[in-house]
């Protein structure tokens, strides 16, 4: 197997999916937990029009930080997101072809589609699909959206989310993310370890709880106010900020298991508001 670098994997995926008619867009310039939060997915999956897109989305999940000590898990990582609407029936085959394009021999290695009902409670989004396992390593989340922003969908999008680090681990046969080759001899670790350690410290130990609690209230208020004035995208950007602030509070241990549903409910209400506004425009 040809050992593609991290950067080469991205460019192969770009080539492959643009070859499938996807519009390549750039990452969202905001702190988000997943590629689903990008307007190119969240808003574009709502209406009846056809849409195909692919992009890299740097993602943050503060609770997943491990001070760069964990070979498989980080609070910052990269997703490769594909969204196809409407969903062609051969989308699974197309996905398998994308693995071949990356040099993965899907006959010699074991590909499993393991049931996983995906849900993003903060976005009021849910779908049915699978985790894709390659020799027991989860490399992709494969979902048929059923609901976005609390709205039951008529036209169904298929979302394919590659964990870029996981894919690279497999291809480079290195099961420690920090040892992956980024490009031209530079490792993933050289670029990310310090960042990962500092953010883990920040999320778990240093983030100012009171400030974040205040920020959450302010962002929520701003999102509502902007939505009232009909400014969909700015309103939505504040929903994302509130969502991230909540994630930091969660990592900081400032939110108990029992309190989480309420915060999530508040963010979901904002996301719904934006989805409704987007559809009326």
């Amino acid at each position: 197997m040809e050992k593609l670098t991290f950067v080469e994997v991205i460019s192969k995926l770009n080539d492959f999916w643009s070859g499938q008619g996807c519009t390549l867009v750039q990452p969202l310039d905001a702190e988000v937990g997943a590629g689903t939060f990008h307007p190119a997915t969240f808003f574009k999956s709502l209406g009846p029009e056809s849409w195909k897109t692919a992009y890299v989305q740097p993602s943050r999940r503060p609770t997943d930080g491990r001070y760069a000590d964990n070979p498989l898990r980080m609070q910052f990582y990269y997703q490769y997101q594909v969204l196809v609407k409407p969903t062609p029936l051969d989308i699974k085959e197309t996905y398998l072809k994308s693995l071949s394009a990356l040099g993965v021999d899907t006959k010699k290695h074991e590909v499993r589609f393991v049931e996983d009902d995906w849900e993003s409670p903060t976005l009021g989004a849910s779908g049915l699909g699978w985790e894709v396992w390659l020799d027991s390593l989860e490399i992709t989340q494969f979902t048929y959206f059923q609901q976005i922003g609390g709205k039951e969908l008529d036209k169904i999008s298929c979302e394919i989310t590659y964990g870029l680090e996981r894919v690279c681990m497999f291809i480079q046969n290195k099961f420690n993310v920090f040892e992956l080759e980024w490009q031209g001899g530079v490792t993933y670790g050289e670029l990310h370890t310090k960042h990962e350690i500092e953010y883990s410290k920040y999320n778990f130990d240093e983030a100012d709880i009171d400030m974040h609690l205040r920020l959450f209230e302010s962002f929520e208020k701003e999102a509502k106010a902007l939505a009232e004035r009909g400014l969909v995208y700015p309103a939505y950007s504040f929903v994302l900020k509130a969502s991230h602030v909540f994630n930091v509070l969660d990592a900081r241990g400032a939110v108990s298991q029992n309190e989480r549903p309420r915060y999530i409910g508040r963010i979901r209400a904002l996301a719904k508001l934006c989805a409704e506004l987007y559809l009326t425009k």
Partner: protein
Amino acid sequence: MKKSDFLLEINVQELPVSYIRPALEQLCRDFLKVLDEFNIEYDKKENLVSAGTKDRLLFYIKDVSAKQKDSCREIIGPPKRIAFDEKGKITKQGAGFAKAQGVEPEDLRVKTTQRGEYLFIEKKTKGRDTRDVLREIIPGIIEGMRFPKTMKWDDSGLRFARPVESVLVLFGKDKLEIKLGKVLSKKVESIEPKAYLRRVSKETLLDPDNRKNKIRKLILKAISSLGADRHIDEALLEEVNFLVDWPGVFVGEFDKKFLTLPEEVLRVSMAKHQRVFPVSKKGRLLNKFIAITNGRSLDIRAVKKNYEKILEARLQDSLFFFDEDTKKPFTENLRQLKDLIFQKDLGSMFEKTQRLKTLSFFVCEKLGLEGSLKKDIERAAELSKTDLVTHMVGEFPSLQGVMGGAYALKAGETPETAAAIKEHYLPHGTEDMLPKSLAGSILAVSDKMDNIVGFLGMGVEVSGSFDPFGIRRNAQGLIQVIKNKSLRLKTDEFIEHSIGLYGDKLKLPSSELKARVTGYIEDRIDFLAGDIRPLELKKAVLNTGCLDIVDAFNRLGELSSISGRRDFLEAAKVVERTSNILKGAKEKVPEDVDEELLREELERAVWKVYAGSKNRIEGLIEKEDYVSATREYADAFYKVLHEFFDNVLVNVDEEAVRLNRLALMKKINKLYSDRIADLALIPQIVVK
């Protein structure tokens, strides 16, 4: 008649494992039912194949008739007197019936029924071509399949568990096209059902049971080669059975250093995260696992290496957590609990453990527990939530409690304390394991009561499927544990004490909250008591009170075991009659009987019986011997009361005498209904 084989294949994207067996059963049942309904004959059951894999549901049946059976049906028309006039000439109505049925007036016949003479015709229907019928019924069968969750994947409106890629319907030499959403017919060249089945069977092990046996054999062979314990995780086996259709096996290995991790951590990493089978020898885990693979073109060596490396990466992670967690004294986590919110309005986890300490101490007192056990429970309560701030539970939330127990033991706490911490979240559902130790049970009921009181106290309502705080699960768990260990607690005191520990944190006033908690627990006892006959017995017992949960279940059990017996019915009759007469009373009935006012000999006899048997019956109730108490009660009162009611009028005009007689009835009624069950709620009591 000409017969052909039939085959239906639904090709679907990977189905959730748990959906497949029920789907196959449903497909087979519905299909045979429809064939019967449509009068299409087939080879009964033998040679029937209902089999499938993760992405293929297949149904094959031999020798299906090429045509429906002809049928003949009588259709009744108008009465003869309306259809024909006096001269025997057909009327407008008669001709109308013939026309509507598409027959000539000559074909009309007359039949004598109970209501008189009526016109009728014999309608013969020619059996249709089976292929036409199949094309018509198959879409409905597929659309009618039920799954726990269904989805849409296009805009045809069709719903299924996962997208249906294609359908194949073969009947004899014909491939039948059916209309099902936008689903296409599978592309195959002309082939007969049997040949197709053979072909598929060459590339997949279709039959779930055969496949499972094959996998079991593969695992057992691997176990033998390792000289390990012949134990297979059955739930995992069933799951894996529907992840693979052409099973292979390999034995993987991981570094021995990971065996220092608690077994639960190793098991979760293997079974849950990679769906491979842990292996143990003489009850202790080995650094080996058995993996069932799928497909025949695999490069097993490469696959195995990946499985091993991935497992080790995960275990490395766990080991790191474990080392981190055990570096500092476990009790140091206690301080961190002050920063961990239990619930915004209910304070921190630290406060919760303080409450649990007091509450479990209270439970121990009430149960008369002393000495080291009490100390162990108190200690366990204090440490019960400390594992929540460990890395390991952060990583595997499902191991909360389990890790707390393991860490406590490692930190030198007593085995009883460790066990109590480990078990206090149990049960996770009505079917789950209950705490084994008494200490764990006491901590479990204290934790659950604290949750129920806290959440309901915030004003949270539980309705139908909406129960975000798991109040239902907590209440059911509480009842199950109390019942299982026969913890004799007065629920009202328990609730009151728990409310008191929250101080002024709760929104609802204590009296209202107490009523709510009591009501909710009663509601859950009713649910957990299940199907008890007679149906009203449950209400009769629960209305009398469930302050002592163990006693409530005892009464339910004992009374339902004798509910068909004569003495039970007699006792019920006594309660019913006394209850009825009291219902009619307009004034307040006094509590005591005035012997001076007992005028009739019969009422004096009843009073004598009461005075003579009261202590004995109450004694039996104290001993919780409800079967004997019921018999004594029936023996004492049934006959004499029968006579009394036949001969003595209770509701006489003279007020003092009337009220005195009612007071006597009240005494007799309450002797049973206040303590055992209000049997007046059981309808239509007939003593034969």
